[in-house]
């Protein structure tokens, strides 16, 4: 068999498809939980109570100040010592979500702060409670602002998820590596994995552009969300940034 045939065989194989599915599942779940964690941390940062703000800062300090690879290995190896035993998959989600939360918090916070003070004042003046102002006025507007950077995080997460191969989660990279080590066809196995990664990130980028177009149509001033070229997308330029360049 020639190389191209091997590549095609791998691309069509159930093992590789499963690996890609695992990569996607880990990315989606970690991003979702990461957004949740990020939102909580962002709201804590906005809190009037100093201890809550302190807790948020501590969290950011911890998870931004250590490598994500370290965090994954820590979760996988240390939690069982204190009686918390999870599967590699669960550990991957926990590690990536907690790490992602530390970055998502900043995105959420800038989204919340981009909604003008006057909007909150107007809500409060109508008799809405603080949490209602947040729920019905600030967050719906913040969501539209954070869509572009969150899209970038998603694409980043897809690539970051390859790290969890070190804690024996059978995602795309581990599958490729295992396959190759069985017959030493590294070029073919890794090429197949690379094609999968590229296909997934490309679809995500197209999806991102689509969602941004929706956000642009529905609300906020049109100038806020601007078209971003594919090249800009590849280097991680978000619509928010593109405007100021």
């Amino acid at each position, binding site marked *: 068999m020639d190389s191209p045939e091997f590549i095609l065989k791998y691309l069509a194989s159930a093992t590789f498809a499963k690996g890609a599915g695992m990569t996607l599942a880990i990315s989606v779940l970690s991003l979702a939980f990461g957004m949740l964690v990020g939102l909580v941390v962002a709201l804590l940062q906005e809190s009037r109570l100093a201890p809550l703000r302190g807790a948020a800062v501590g969290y950011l300090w911890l998870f931004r100040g250590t490598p994500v690879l370290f965090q994954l290995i820590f979760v996988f190896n240390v939690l069982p010592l204190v009686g918390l035993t999870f599967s590699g998959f669960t550990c991957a989600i926990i590690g990536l979500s907690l790490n992602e939360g530390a970055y998502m918090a900043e995105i959420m916070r800038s989204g919340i702060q981009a909604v003008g003070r*006057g909007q909150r004042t107007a809500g409060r003046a109508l008799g809405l409670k603080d949490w209602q102002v947040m729920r019905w006025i600030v967050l719906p507007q913040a969501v539209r602002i954070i869509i572009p950077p969150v899209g970038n995080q998603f694409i980043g997460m897809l690539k970051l998820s390859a790290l969890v191969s070190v804690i024996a989660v059978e995602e795309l990279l581990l599958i490729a590596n295992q396959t190759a080590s069985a017959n030493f066809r590294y070029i073919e196995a890794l090429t197949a994995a690379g094609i999968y990664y590229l296909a997934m990130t490309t679809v995500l980028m197209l999806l991102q552009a689509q969602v941004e177009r929706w956000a642009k149509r529905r609300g906020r001033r049109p100038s806020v969300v601007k078209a971003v070229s594919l090249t800009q997308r590849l280097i991680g330029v978000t619509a928010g940034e593109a405007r100021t360049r």
Partner: protein
Amino acid sequence: MSGPGKSDRLLVKVEALHKSYGDLQVLKNVNVEVPRGRSVVVIGPSGSGKSTLLRCLNLLEPIDSGIITFDGQDTAPLRKAAHALRREIGMVFQNFELFQHLSAIENIILAPMKVLGMSEEEARARARKLLEKVHIPEKADVFPDELSGGQQQRVAIARALAMSPKLMLYDEPTSALDPEMIKEVLDVMLELSQEGMTSVVVTHEMGFARRAAHHIVFMDGGEVVEDAATEQFFTGAVHPRTQRFLQQILR
């Protein structure tokens, strides 16, 4: 407590109000009365504390000392649950502050539904009437960024009215508008005033003050310099600072 007759006549009474931001005293011993069904216009140079006074009335700003009585009740104990008081006081802002993600009618029905627990159906029906009242019934489903400034401000007025407030506060409602749109907003405010809506208006529109105000308060440097019935104010304003300001603005 003042006599029952007097507190009945007044919707708002501000006594000896003091407020500072750090070393800067923005309100010094301010006393203002707003009788029910009347419009009080507050004028004065920028930085004179007019807007701050307005924001103190619906408890958006904490105060250092003084008493603000609303509808016969001292507002000091209400500060912890200020949202309950604010539903009775409508406020209109210089920059409209319509919620950008909601259409005109959605802006109007939000607070009645979330604060008063009104059904969407009822809230929408009332909102449509209010949009007619501010002369833009056809703009119900339009988003703020597609409305002119004057239209936005009228939606903002309708939004405030939707809570059936006892008092309306207008904070320089026409200052951000192009000249040709000022009249459409002032007309709506004038109609409301003539219907007996109690209001406090911070504005530089002296024509409006002359026609709609029952009382005019002139502030300068955080103090109330002049407080007089409208007619008296324009004909016999006594304080030299007031006269100087009027000469500048009526020039």
